[in-house]
């Protein structure tokens, strides 16, 4: 990118500068630290110049927005055309209560929905299961059957919104419920827009809401890929997530590496199931974390796009441009928030959101200030949404595409992350791919190592967290946090009793048997799941059938 003679001159000049003014300044003042590092422990130099990016080739490494390798963004005009989707993850209590929160958010200018399910739903238990005790409606909305889904989207036409659902092990069932609801609303399936998370591999690694063993779980993933490719062309059949691994403690490099390694495993599984890469790859989407180290995060997003484009084109021979594009949702980092001085979190979230926007995200969730302690109140969620709106309409960073490109630092860091991610992916390939690496505990160990190191650095004060280990004040613990009324659990149980009395139980038995047969055989499960949810079979009943056929995952622990 640079003229050789100019680089030689610069090198000499920089050398003189270091021996002259820099040395003199260091003698007098010194620097704050012996060495500087990003939050991911990448070394940071005093100064970046063309010398640090001398190897870069503009066409090869950056290209133009909307063109391979998509480093600068997946669309030609990015936010000059349309802003990112502002999508606040929400859901708690029962379907009625969550429905009210969704309508409120839409009124406040939110442009997409994002459904949080409670843990029993995520793990395939009905609200009246003994293991559901105390968990119903706590971290998300409780959905037991299509009847709850009808209440959840009451008054929200499904062809008017895009809906993201954070659901993994039973993703195919919730997708079936959404499709069944669309039919009832008279909305054609090809008009549905949204995402199911459907990323089971990271559940084994970090998030913990697995049900079935890896092999049948991967089959469910491939089945949803095939079903979506055929019936829901505008639906993202998976959201391959680095977020939870990052929250579990890994760094930015590891986040990208492990996410892409998982993505490779999903693509391979679909190819092995006989799908053509360009039929499903355009509907693969991603989900990343945004932390406080703004420039590292921006570089991370850029590197991830470039890496994925290369992987899809070179490794899997994907031909469609859309198959090569890494489209991603971002959530700001929950683990970076503090319970102490919670208002400081608003500032952190602003920095994190800015990083996501500068990194070219397609949609964004901003956390609320009290999320280190509880689910957010309506006021806090509004403030979090306003943060996005201020960035969108007042900061000016949205008016040109990929504004940080060409920063010597950002380009060098993008390259550094890319190289380190490639080394990880090579290592994981050697171990036999992501699924095997997870089985052997490699990825979990890497994450735990980073998490433990981070904790020790915070406790030693080497890493400053404002308000936590520095600039502390005496403060009263916050009150008026949002609480989920324990009565929800009882109501949900009663609703189930009524449902089981009301529905056509012969049809339930028959459709569940259809699910069982499909699970035992090789046919695509999703159409059978659709029949069962349509007959108001509950999520727990369907999962029990699948547990019977597939078995349950035996957790293993790695230290």
């Amino acid at each position: 990118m640079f003229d050789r003679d100019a680089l030689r001159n610069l090198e000499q000049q920089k050398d003189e500068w270091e021996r002259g003014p820099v040395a003199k300044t260091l003698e007098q003042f010194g620097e704050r630290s012996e060495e500087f590092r990003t939050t991911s422990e990448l070394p940071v130099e005093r100064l970046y110049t063309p010398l640090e990016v001398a190897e870069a080739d503009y066409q090869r490494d950056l290209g133009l927005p909307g063109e391979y390798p998509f480093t600068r963004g997946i669309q030609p005009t990015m936010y000059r055309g349309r802003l990112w989707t502002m999508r606040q993850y929400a859901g708690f209590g029962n379907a009625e209560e969550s429905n009210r929160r969704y309508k409120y958010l839409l009124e406040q200018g939110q442009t997409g929905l994002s459904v949080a399910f409670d843990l029993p739903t995520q793990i395939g238990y009905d609200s009246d299961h003994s293991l559901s005790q105390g968990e119903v409606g706590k971290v998300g909305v409780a959905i037991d059957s299509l009847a709850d889904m009808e209440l959840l989207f009451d008054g929200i036409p499904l062809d008017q919104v895009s809906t993201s659902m954070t659901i993994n092990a039973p993703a195919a069932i919730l997708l079936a419920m959404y499709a069944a609801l669309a039919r009832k609303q008279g909305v054609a399936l090809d008009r549905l827009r949204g995402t199911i998370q459907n990323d089971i591999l990271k559940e084994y690694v970090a998030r913990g809401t697995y049900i079935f063993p890896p092999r049948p779980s991967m089959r469910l993933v491939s089945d949803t890929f095939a079903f979506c490719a055929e019936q829901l062309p505008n639906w993202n059949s998976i959201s391959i997530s680095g977020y939870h691994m990052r929250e579990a403690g890994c760094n930015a490099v590891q986040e990208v590496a492990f996410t892409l390694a998982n993505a490779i495993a999903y693509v391979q599984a679909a190819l092995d199931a006989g799908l053509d890469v360009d039929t499903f790859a355009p509907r693969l989407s991603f989900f990343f974390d945004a932390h406080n180290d703004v420039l590292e995060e921006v570089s991370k997003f850029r590197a991830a796009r470039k890496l994925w484009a290369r992987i899809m084109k070179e490794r899997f021979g994907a031909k469609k441009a859309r198959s090569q594009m890494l489209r991603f949702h971002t959530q700001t980092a929950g683990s970076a928030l503090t319970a102490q001085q919670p208002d400081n979190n608003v500032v952190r979230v602003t920095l994190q959101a800015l990083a996501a926007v500068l990194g070219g995200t397609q949609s964004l969730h901003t956390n609320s200030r009290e999320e280190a302690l509880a689910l957010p109140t309506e006021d806090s969620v509004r403030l979090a949404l306003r943060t996005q709106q201020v960035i969108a309409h007042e900061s000016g960073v949205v008016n040109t595409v990929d504004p940080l490109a060409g920063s010597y630092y950002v380009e060098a860091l993008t390259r550094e992350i890319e190289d380190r991610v490639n080394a990880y992916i090579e290592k994981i390939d050697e171990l036999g791919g992501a699924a095997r690496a997870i089985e052997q505990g490699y990825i979990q160990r890497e994450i735990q190592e980073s998490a433990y190191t981070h904790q020790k650095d915070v406790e030693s004060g080497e890493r400053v967290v404002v308000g936590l280990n520095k600039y502390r004040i005496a403060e009263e613990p916050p009150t008026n946090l949002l609480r989920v009324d324990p009565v929800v659990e009882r109501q949900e149980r009663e609703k189930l009793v009524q449902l089981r009395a009301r529905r056509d139980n012969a049809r339930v038995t028959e459709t569940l048997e259809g699910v069982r047969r499909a699970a035992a055989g090789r046919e695509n499960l999703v159409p059978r799941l659709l029949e069962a949810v349509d007959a108001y079979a509950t999520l727990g009943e369907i999962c029990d059938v699948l547990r019977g056929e597939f078995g349950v995952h035996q957790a293993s622990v790695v230290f």
Partner: protein
Amino acid sequence: MAEQPIRVLIAKPGLDGHDRGAKVLARALRDAGMEVIYTGLRQTPEQIAATATQEDVHVVGLSCLSGAHLELFPRVVQLLREHGAGDILVLGGGTIPSEDISVLKEHGVAEVFTPGASTQEVVEFVKRSVNL
């Protein structure tokens, strides 16, 4: 090596899968010379109490981030008492609002550590309380 290491059970009651804190703490306790039994995710209070009794631990550390602590923690204390193991110290950790802490303490939870607590605080507390 200590003659008599402190034994601790770190458990995740309920369905919550966020085990970063539990695992970091388990390692910190190990590095402080304790024998730490870790039982993984999705433990029922019955499993936790039975495990604590069989393992004859001094301390049970419960971690829960899903908001189900008021249902789950007191139940563990109660079951330990039923096992004749009411002397085992029960600690709690997670996203727990301050007004719940006093409720948990009334129900026999010895101490509750919330986000931002350092692992060293927990180590010190355990050493002080067990006092071998």
